[in-house]
């Protein structure tokens, strides 16, 4: 959190304080405190219905927060929306355009709605953007004849048309084929290299892992984690050790616990797991007796040699040692599973200290299970 305190105000692109949206009794987004910095490729993750789209809609002023506020470029979305929107490109959910117009004509509409002048340069820019998303050959085709992937590309084209500083993409690769996905990812990377800030909501965790440097994870409207992707990946790194028998596994467990007590602080936790290393490594349990021949050590992957040495000192020889790189998927599953267990109690985990909100707070807000 220190880095946030140290950064210039100018570098905070999005910040929300206790942003809340309730639809009747359903709290879709609860007390959300987000910080997105200039140049971030910010992954916004969460299971279906966790409130990602609702948050994006609030950021864009499409819906009013029930409580809390959102600032973009340091301006309050409640009061300065037009000025904010002129610096944003966005795709909310599946892109929609006028079905009877061609892709190119739809972009002309967007250009007019975005205050772009009627000028040959605007037409040139439209052609270039169409080329960029590889739609140029189908640009004259009516939108209702587009495939889902072509629609997504046109959505991205519309978002990039005005060369915005901040790009909000809500599941942009939804419906794209594998090649299309890679292309969009490359495009995002390139945009980031140009200094654009990108806010990317997605279900596709490996995609987020590849392109994002920071993430926030939402669960039933609550922020359960916000931070650097690399830190999150390090957190879920672990080593699986398979011993030849349950007895050896118990001995190894004891040896490693002793090592940790003696100062090997890089070992964060050790659990015996009942299943083999290749299946369901995330489902660790304190399984008892015969089945538990495998240990899961929460430690950096590069420490596996040291672990091997530690065990060898005690005459314990592992049948196999598998260092496991961290994956966002695993971190995500763990965090959402934990949030499921703790319910709303987890809501404060990733949050920042928040100033008092303005506006109405609905009864029952924050008490949702």
């Amino acid at each position, binding site marked *: 959190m220190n880095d946030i305190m140290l950064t210039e105000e100018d570098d905070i692109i999005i910040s929300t304080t206790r942003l809340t949206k309730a639809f009747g009794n359903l709290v879709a987004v609860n007390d959300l405190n987000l910080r997105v910095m200039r140049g971030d490729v910010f992954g916004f993750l969460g299971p279906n219905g966790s409130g990602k789209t609702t948050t994006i*809609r609030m950021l864009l002023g499409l819906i009013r927060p029930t409580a809390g506020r959102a600032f973009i470029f340091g301006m309050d979305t409640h009061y300065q929306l037009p000025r904010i929107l002129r610096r944003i490109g966005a795709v909310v959910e599946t892109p929609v355009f006028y079905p009877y117009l061609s892709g190119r004509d739809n972009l002309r509409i967007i250009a007019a*709605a975005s*205050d772009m002048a009627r000028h040959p340069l605007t037409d040139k*820019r439209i052609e270039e953007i169409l080329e*960029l998303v590889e739609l140029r050959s189908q640009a004259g085709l009516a939108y209702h004849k587009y495939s889902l992937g072509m629609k997504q590309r046109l959505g991205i084209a519309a978002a990039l048309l005005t060369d915005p500083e901040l790009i909000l993409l809500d599941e942009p690769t939804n419906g794209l084929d594998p090649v299309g996905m890679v292309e969009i990812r*490359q495009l995002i990377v390139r945009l*980031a*290299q140009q200094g654009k800030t990108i806010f990317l909501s997605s279900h596709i965790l490996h995609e987020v892992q590849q392109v994002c*440097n920071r993430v926030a994870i939402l669960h039933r409207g609550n922020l359960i984690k916000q931070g650097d*992707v690399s830190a999150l990946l390090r957190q879920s790194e672990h080593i699986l050790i398979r011993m030849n028998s349950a007895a050896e596994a118990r001995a190894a467990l004891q040896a490693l616990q002793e090592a940790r007590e003696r100062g090997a602080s890089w070992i964060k936790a050790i659990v015996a797991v009942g299943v083999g290393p290749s299946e369901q490594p995330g489902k660790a349990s304190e399984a008892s007796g015969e089945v538990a021949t495998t240990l899961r050590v929460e430690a950096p992957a590069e420490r596996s040699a040291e672990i091997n040495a530690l065990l060898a000192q005690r005459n314990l020889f592992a049948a196999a040692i598998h260092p496991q790189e961290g994956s966002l998927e695993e971190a995500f599953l763990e965090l959402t599973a934990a949030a499921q267990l703790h319910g709303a109690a987890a809501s404060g985990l990733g949050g920042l200290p928040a100033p008092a909100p303005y506006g109405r707070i609905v009864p029952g807000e924050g008490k949702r299970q």
Partner: protein
Amino acid sequence: MHPIDTGLSTSAREGQPLAEQFASAPVLLGRRDYLSVLLRLTAMELYKLRRRPLTRISALIALLTTLLVFFALFLFSTGDGSGQVVRLLLPPTSLNIAVQTALTPFTILIIIIAGSTAGGEYTQGTIRLLFTRGPTRTQFLLAKVGAMLICCIVGISVLSISGLVIGYLLSLLRQAPSPAPFLTTSWLLHTGLFLLLAIFNWFIFAVIALFFGILGRSSAAGIGGGIVWYLLEPIIGQICQLSSELVQGPVSAFLRALPDYLIGNNLATLMAHQGYYIFGSSSISTLPDAEALTVLLAYIVLLLSIAGWLNHRRDITN
């Protein structure tokens, strides 16, 4: 271990088509004052209207019907020795026929166009495309109103001119009696007002359809609401008149006064007054023009205010 420095980004930098063709043309912005933005959005709305199949079909139907009406008159004039029917093909009567043809059946077409232009943004979901670009929601609404107004002006002008031209051309095929002179300054003035009222007639129903389209967030609501209003008004007027004779006292007075506040009656009054000067038709109503106009303007202001308020306040969730 910054994820951006992966092999993926390297391949993006090297030689992929995507990497080479990043947009180089600058974003050229137009004027940003309220009126310029509004005009640009109005032009955008007109462009959409022009490109919509619905508008094109409506325009075609209206033009063909005008042609048919005059052609029917032409056929009726076959056995007419006195030249009374042929005279209908010529101004000033032909203007009245053209405008009445436009107003009576084709107000429904304007309702359909306006209702779907407002509600369609919600039905299609394109509303979120517009509302996230920068101009305010009020500007978008006003642009729609402006586009519909222009649509009404163009529609009435084209239909009345086509009527005049078609009628004249057909009359050339017949022995037309030389017309009585009518072209005076006063006639031109009243004809101008008559056409303005015809435009206003369409426009007010366009506003009603816009209102219902926004209220119900769908084309169906806009079209349905507009058409029901259009068809129900005369019936309500009739019922009021009939029932006012059955009861006494203040209720009766109220029922008698109510039709004076219906849109259709006020429009009919205004048009009949001008028709009296132009075509010599008898004026049916005793309502003063100013009062009728005030009632109609009040409707427009009220409906647009409510629509504007809804449009401004509401959450866009579709």
